[in-house]
């Protein structure tokens, strides 16, 4: 069964690159441009994993992460936070919000793919 990945970011070029990488890795890819859209997608059909940007318009990544974790139906959704904010405190905060992993931008494409594969193995 094909695993699904939801890519959430407001930077279209980053979305484009992640979409390409996930498709190449053989995952079913969906895309959202902001936090609200991400939650809509999750509500439609919870993906197996979310690549979630933190700094976004409307609802930010922390907010989205928290909302998903608050819903027991979505407890199996893996969440990897992606952020350009590289400070430790933000990493801590992301993990505290219930994220499974935390990747700092700019990232290594191979590492992202490996991590996603790791969580969806």
């Amino acid at each position: 069964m094909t695993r699904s990945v939801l890519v959430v970011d407001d930077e279209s070029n980053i979305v484009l690159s992640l979409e390409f990488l996930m498709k190449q890795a053989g995952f079913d890819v969906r895309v959202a441009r902001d936090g609200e859209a991400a939650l809509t997608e999750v509500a439609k059909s919870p993906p197996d994993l979310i690549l979630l940007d933190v700094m976004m318009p409307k609802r930010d990544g922390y907010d989205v992460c928290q909302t998903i974790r608050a819903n027991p139906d979505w407890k199996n959704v893996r969440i990897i936070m992606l952020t350009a904010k590289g400070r430790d405190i933000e990493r801590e905060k992301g993990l505290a919000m219930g994220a499974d992993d935390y990747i700092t931008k700019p990232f290594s494409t191979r590492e992202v793919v490996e991590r996603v594969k790791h969580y969806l193995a």
Partner: protein
Amino acid sequence: MSGAVVIGVAFAYLCLLFAIAYWGDKRADARRSLIAHPAIYALSIAVYCTSWTFYGSVGRATQTGVGFLPIYLGPTLMAALWWLVLRKMVRISKTHRITSIADFVSSRYGKSTFLSGLVTVIAVIGIMPYISLQLKAVSASFTALVEFAAPGSTPGLPLPGADTPFHADTALYVAAILAAFAILFGTRHIDASEHHEGMVAAIAFESIVKLLAFLAVGLFVAFGLFAGPGDIFRQAAERADLARLFTMPDAGAIGDFVALTLLSMLVILCLPRQFQVSVVECVDEVHIKRAMWMFPLYLLLINLFVLPIAFAGLLTFQPGTVHPDLFVLALPLSQGHQFLALFAFIGGLSAATGMIIVETVALATMVCNDLVMPVLLRIEGLNLAQRRDLSRLLLAIRRWTIVVVVLLGYLYVRLIGQSFALVTIGLVSFAAAAQFAPVLLGGIFWRGATRAGAVAGLMGGFGVWLYTLLLPSFARSGWLPVGFVDHGLFGFALLKPYALFGLSGLDPITHSLIWSLIANLGFYIAVSLASGQGAIERIQAALFVDVFRPSGEAGGGRFWRGTAPVADLQELVGRFVGEEAAARAFALYAAERGLDLALQGEADADLVNFAERILAGAIGAASARVMVASVAKGEVVGLQEVMEILDEASQILAYSQKLEMKSKELEQATAELTAANERLKELDRLKDDFVSTITHELRTPLTSIRSFSEILHDNPELDLGQRQEFLRIVISESERLTRLINQVLDLAKIEAGSLDWDIRTLDVAEAVRAALTATQRLAGDKGVTLTVDLEAGAPPVPADRDRLIQVMVNLLSNAVKFAPPDKGRIAVTLAATPEGVRVSVADNGPGIPADHHEAVFDKFRQVGDTLTEKPEGSGLGLAISRTILEHLGGRIWVESRPGEGATFNFVLPRAV
């Protein structure tokens, strides 16, 4: 009459007096005071009537008629004021244990030992003529009595003069005997309160004797010799040479009359002996009430027969044969009434001895307490404070003082006294004593009088008195060159002692009185007003002036700290007043308060004050203070010190107020620092945010670049179209990164002030057109229509062309960014305003809500956050634009409503 008889009777009389005094002292010791009667008090004040009154009034009356009266009129007038004045002085003296007029004055003016010494010196010198007068009177009357023996013969009275050998001079023996008696009366023991009850009793007795003697002579003359006073006056009026005595001759005489009345008003308070009997010896101030009418009555009685005797003498004796001063004796003698004459002699002796005893005792107290003791106490070598028994020393000083004072009086009578009548000599002393009046009366009624004023007044008045009365009297007698009297000092007529500054036509006494009192009062008032009072002076002034206020009773006004053993205090007091007396006083103190001093090891403040007051009674306030302070382990705090402590306290208070202010200032500074710190923290946080945001903004394009670079690298099989697409993204994101880095650098430079500005006056429209050219393609790509309206003739303004273009490109690219694709419209206008040049860029984009109108100019604030599509851009453009315009002296703002597009405006000011 034989000299032996006269001497025997006189001696017997003096012994009787002594017996009375002795008895009075015994009664006093037994607490059954002989003198606790108002009549005794009034009679003792009659010590005012000396041999001058007894013999001199008649003499004066033979020259000026009623001219003898002012001397008695003055005291009569003053007696009416006694309840106001004398009672106050008595109250003050009781409160402060005043022992003499010098003590009184010094106490009032801050317990100044200098002032008490000055008063003492003036008193001794001033009173010397007065004492000489008594000696002269006694010796003259003695001689008259002894040598005039034959009834019917005319008494010739050769007064002893400078040519008489000392051993033959009656006055010398009189002086010696009177000195001895004064010592016996006044200095048998040192009394804590300085009361001499026995002496007062004797004086009162003498007053009765001299009054009776004078009345006896008067009655004899008026009714024995003549047919009543009316007969005498009638006979006198018939004599042409005597008629003038019935009238006041001229204005000058009236002036003298008034002046002498005033003078005697003052001296009844100021003469040391009057102060002694009426103030110091006053046992109860209620007695003053009786004295107020009884004393004037006494004066009236003793003056009743002055004129009859005077006229009788003038009618009886040939002019020049009998000295008028001796009419009182000569009239009975001429009629052969030897016993009456002897009685009159005893009366005159009473008058003289009374005066000398009281005067010398008063002077001795002053000299001892206010002149000698302060000096001795200051001589460290003598170590007086440690001496076992000082009462013997005190007594010795007083006895020697009496001897010296009486001898001085004798010298005066021998050297000068021959040249003047009794009354004149007396008035010289009166004028000296009157010098005390301003400081005395001013002291009890004028709070502002100062020590310096008192010293200046006394010195001024006394100086004038010396120059206008005493020195001329020496000159007249040949002891000084007489030239300065006749021609003025150094030949200046204005300095003639009897006509100072041209004031002539007056009696020398009146003349001196006027000038000395003017000098005295003038200096006293002027210097008092000009000088300040010390702390202790101020307090003493208040205690004296306000003595009748309840709080004035405190008297001591002394604070006490630390401890002093009771035994030590008693021993100290004992050394001055005698151990027995001290023990008695302390026992009485304890009994009155129900204390057992033996159990009370340490003295309290009350007891220390009590001890000091006893000492003050024996040695004066100033010395007592020194003694208690020296013995009581230096722990007595004088008011001076208390005032200093208070001063210090107020300084500390001021200091602590300053500290409080400082601490407030510090608090304020702390608050400011805290605020500044908060501001710094805020700035630090903003900087962190800025760095964090910059990091984010830098990492975002980097992420795309790296991702697509890796994709391209890892996927060589990608088709060309896709490869081209990804490379275009890499290039575009690289450009974005470069732009961002440049803008961050720009902003940092502008903010740090290190950007190079090329400011010159330029045409704004030209810069706007350059920016339009640069952005035209951008707008065209998005299908946005540009309308441009640049007003011609707008004034050139100072600006940096490149920065101005940067601002315009920013605004135009923003407008393009937010304008809807294909339907977008951008209007650029330029217009001249009074302010300068205004440029507007209006778009038809989504607009900006009012609450963001300011925020859009913040760094990295992209109001585009509200858009679904994230606009491209660093978020620094507007921030940079604003910074540039502010640097150029202009401003930038936005006008917009959501949904109606936004108009960015900026203004560049004209050149100044």
